[in-house]
C-alpha cells in the first residue's frame, strides 16, 4: 500500500517544491513566479498533512496548519496580483528585469 506510507507523501511534497523552484527561476513574468510560489506553499502544506496523518499525536493540528497556509496563500495571491497590476500600470511591463530599478 503505497498510499499509506509517509515517505511517499514526503517525496511528492519535495517534487512540488522542486517544481516551484524550477518555475521561479525559469519564468520571466511576475505572474509566473506567483504561480510557482503557490507550488512551494502546496508542498509545505502537504508535508504538514503527511506528518499529521502518520506521526503527530493530535490529528487536528496539521489540518489547521494546512488551512492557515491556504489563508496565507490567498492573502499573498491577492496582494501580489494587485502589486503586479500596479507595476504594470507604472512600467507597462511585467518583466522583473525591467522593473528592478523600482522607479522609472
Amino acid at each position, binding site marked *: *500500500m*503505497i*498510499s499509506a506510507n509517509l*515517505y511517499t507523501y*514526503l517525496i*511528492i511534497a*519535495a*517534487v*512540488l*517544491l522542486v*517544481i516551484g*523552484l*524550477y*518555475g521561479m*527561476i*525559469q*519564468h*520571466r*513574468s511576475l*505572474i*509566473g513566479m*506567483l*504561480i*510557482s510560489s*503557490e*507550488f512551494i506553499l*502546496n508542498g509545505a502544506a*502537504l508535508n504538514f*498533512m503527511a*506528518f499529521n*496523518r502518520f*506521526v*503527530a*499525536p*493530535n*490529528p*487536528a*493540528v496539521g*489540518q*489547521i496548519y*494546512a488551512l*492557515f497556509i*491556504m*489563508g*496565507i*496563500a*490567498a*492573502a*499573498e*495571491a*491577492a496582494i501580489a*496580483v*494587485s502589486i*503586479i*497590476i*500596479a507595476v*504594470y*500600470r*507604472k512600467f507597462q511591463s*511585467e518583466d522583473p528585469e525591467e522593473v528592478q530599478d523600482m522607479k522609472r
Partner: protein
Amino acid sequence: MIVYQYIAEALFYAFVALTFMGGFMAIRSRLLMHAVLGLAVSLFGVAGLYFYLGSPFLTMMQILIYVGAVCIIIVLGVMLGNTPDQLAIKNLTRGNLPLALVACTTGFVALFIATVTRTEFVKSSEHIGDMSIQFVGENLLFQYCLAFELISVILLTAIIGAIILARDGREEKTS
C-alpha cells in the same frame, strides 16, 4: 474487498499523476493562461492526496480556496496584465536553464537523502481525537483561537492593501 483496494491504489496514482502533470504544464507552458490551468490541475491533484491523508474537510477547502479563489485571482492578474502574444515570446528564458536544473536536482537529492535514508520518524505513542471536522473545529475555537483571529486580521489587511495598491495611479490616467 481486494478489488476496492486496487481501485483505491489506482486512484491514488491518478491523483499523483494529476499533480505532477499539472506542475510540468505550469512551468513549461509559454502562455501564462496555460500555466494557471496547470496550477489548477495540480492543486486538484493535491486535493485528492488530502483525501487519501484522511481529511475530506481539507479536500473541500483546497478545491474551494485554491482552485476556486486563488486561481481565479491569478487569471484576473493574467488578463489585466500584458497581452498574451508579447508574453509568449519572452515568457520562458533559456539562459537560466542550467542554473534551474542544477538547483532543482541538488535540492531534490538533498531532501531525498535527508528524509528517506537519514531520518526515522517515530509515531507518537499517545493519540487523542480523530480526523473529524468536529475535532478540528473544537481545536480551532479553543486551543488555536488566537491564530484563527490573526488569520482573519491578515485577510482583512490583505483585502484593504490590495484595494489601495491596485487603485493607486488610476485617477491620473482617466482624468
